[in-house]
């Protein structure tokens, strides 16, 4: 492991991307992820790598498409309205099975919304966002160090499965400073060659990057291949954290920033003798349905807490079904629920 640094979440994601061997970064400025862009602007050229401030979010994701197709590790980042603009390119990247990393430092929505932290893009990230039958791998960090770890992981998973991977964080995580230890940098030259990439058809048949097939049978096969890949990812890559769940009567389900806050709530509740645990999905797609289903068999309540009007709540209810009560507590508009307000909500469900 490398040196210990005090960095903002945005800077940690940028630095982790560089250490993961990201050779091309393209983005358009937007709050609250500007520090990420600025860290890349400063450091990528120093390393002889590509930084371009694109003319638009659409151009940035299209540049990612080109660089990913050319076989290098590449990333873009933005915040909610910017991610909406990128959906065209994201659908094409998914269809063409191109590996890349997309960071969404979510802000309050809909529309222009505000620059305060929110989790209101969960549906967009995990259920599609763009057109067509596709998924991204979606990783939801809850601390600054975890944002770094998951960014490194994102590049690995993207290459392994030839899939776009999204880091779904929020403005709080992006702006917050914490001490982190980042791993030593990966030399991009040491990464395995991508024999499918458009690197020049010398001594081989041309490589073609495509996200379409005109013939319905061929397009069906492309979709079947994607679905098969998604099943493999679901079997192998589900990640989640359980905290104090062994003897819990109530489990809080929460991801990202609010997942971390709910850890404090668990400790506060336990200090008062209330048996509460936390279930925190780390992969938001694929969602940890089975682990949550198992957990729901030992508790009477699974309380979903989100910084949204209740989006992950739908996945919680799919996992829990009728095995336990599934109340919801959340805030919108960029308001972060306090531990005290969540604890008060927990107390309503004590039996």
């Amino acid at each position, binding site marked *: 492991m490398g040196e210990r640094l005090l960095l903002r979440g945005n800077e940690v994601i940028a630095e982790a991307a560089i250490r993961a061997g990201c*050779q091309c970064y393209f983005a358009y400025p937007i709050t609250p992820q500007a520090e990420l862009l600025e860290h890349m602007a400063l450091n990528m050229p120093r390393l002889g790598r590509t930084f*371009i401030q694109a*003319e638009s979010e659409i151009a940035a994701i299209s540049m990612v*498409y080109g660089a990913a197709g050319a*076989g290098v590790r590449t990333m873009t980042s933005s915040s909610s309205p910017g991610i909406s603009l990128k959906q065209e390119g994201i659908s094409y990247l998914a269809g063409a099975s191109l590996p890349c990393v997309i960071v969404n430092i979510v802000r309050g929505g809909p529309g222009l919304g505000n620059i305060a932290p929110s989790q209101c893009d969960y549906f967009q990230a995990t259920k599609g966002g763009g057109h067509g039958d596709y998924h991204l791998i979606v990783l939801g960090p809850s601390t600054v160090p975890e944002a770094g770890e998951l960014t490194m992981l994102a590049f690995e998973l993207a290459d392994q499965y030839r899939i776009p991977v999204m880091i779904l964080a929020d403005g709080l995580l992006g702006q917050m400073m914490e001490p982190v230890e980042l791993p030593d940098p990966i030399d991009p030259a040491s990464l395995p060659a991508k024999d499918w990439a458009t*690197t*020049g058809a010398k001594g081989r048949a*041309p490589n*073609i990057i495509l996200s379409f097939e005109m013939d319905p049978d061929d397009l069906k096969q492309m979709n079947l291949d994607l679905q098969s890949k998604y099943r493999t990812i679901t079997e192998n890559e589900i990640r989640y954290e359980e905290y104090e769940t062994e003897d819990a009567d109530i489990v809080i389900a929460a991801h990202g920033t609010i997942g971390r806050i709910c850890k404090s709530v668990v400790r506060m509740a336990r200090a008062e003798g209330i048996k509460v645990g936390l279930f925190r999905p780390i992969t938001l797609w694929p969602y940890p349905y089975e682990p949550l289903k198992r957990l729901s068999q030992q508790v009477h309540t699974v309380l979903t807490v989100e910084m949204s009007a209740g989006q992950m709540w739908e996945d919680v209810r799919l996992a829990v079904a009728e095995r336990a009560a599934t109340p919801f507590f959340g805030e919108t508009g960029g308001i972060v629920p306090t531990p005290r307000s969540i604890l008060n909500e927990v107390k309503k469900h004590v039996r």
Partner: protein
Amino acid sequence: MSANLENMVKVFERPQSLTDARFTYCPGCHHGIITRIIGNVMDELGIVERTVGIAPVGCSVFSYLWYKADSQQVPHGRACAVATGIKRARPELIVFSYQGDGDFASIGTAESIHAANRGENITVIFVNNQIYGMTGGEMAPTTLVDQKTTTTPEGRDPRVAGYPIRFSEMIATLDAPAYVTRQALFDTKHIMETTKAVKKAFQYQVEGKGYSLVEILSTCPTNWRMSPVQSNTHVAETVTKVFPLGDLVDRG
């Protein structure tokens, strides 16, 4: 007979850089000529093994089938941004985009202008036939005033739909581009001149001189409701009055 054949000199053959796949273009359309020209230029410069072509959305969506080069098929209008990504990732590659007027000069306006303004070391082949061919003959940004299309059934009325956009002239106002030219293919002389222009555009990229744009006035007999011969005459006599031929920028 065989002795005679041996003595014959081959003066015309399929470019080595093209595959054997048959074009999907309509009879009389100039896309086939342009594809051949690009194939010949790749042969002459010996670059097919390090070239990546960008296939757009539109009639030339299948252009990845024609070249023995790597290709990326990309979203409508985004070719210049994708080309930027490829070229920045691997500067040793020769990257060209092949785009129609709707792709390059309408939905891709921002990407087209800003790649040129950055002076990306890429080559853009911009095929201007003043119509949307694949979707059924709708108005293009380059459609002439009074020209009938399926979305301007009474003819393009500039009070409603504006004027044909001279995109290459707009690009030519920028400081970065190395070469901007407009060419046509309505007779042999112009086919030869277009070939020279395309070769220069690729040559500049090979030499690292920066962004080049070759606009080529093309035909669409199917949607123009004209014969191929009428179409060529229309380009020569009418279209070139709105879109004058010649070099706009040459900083080589």
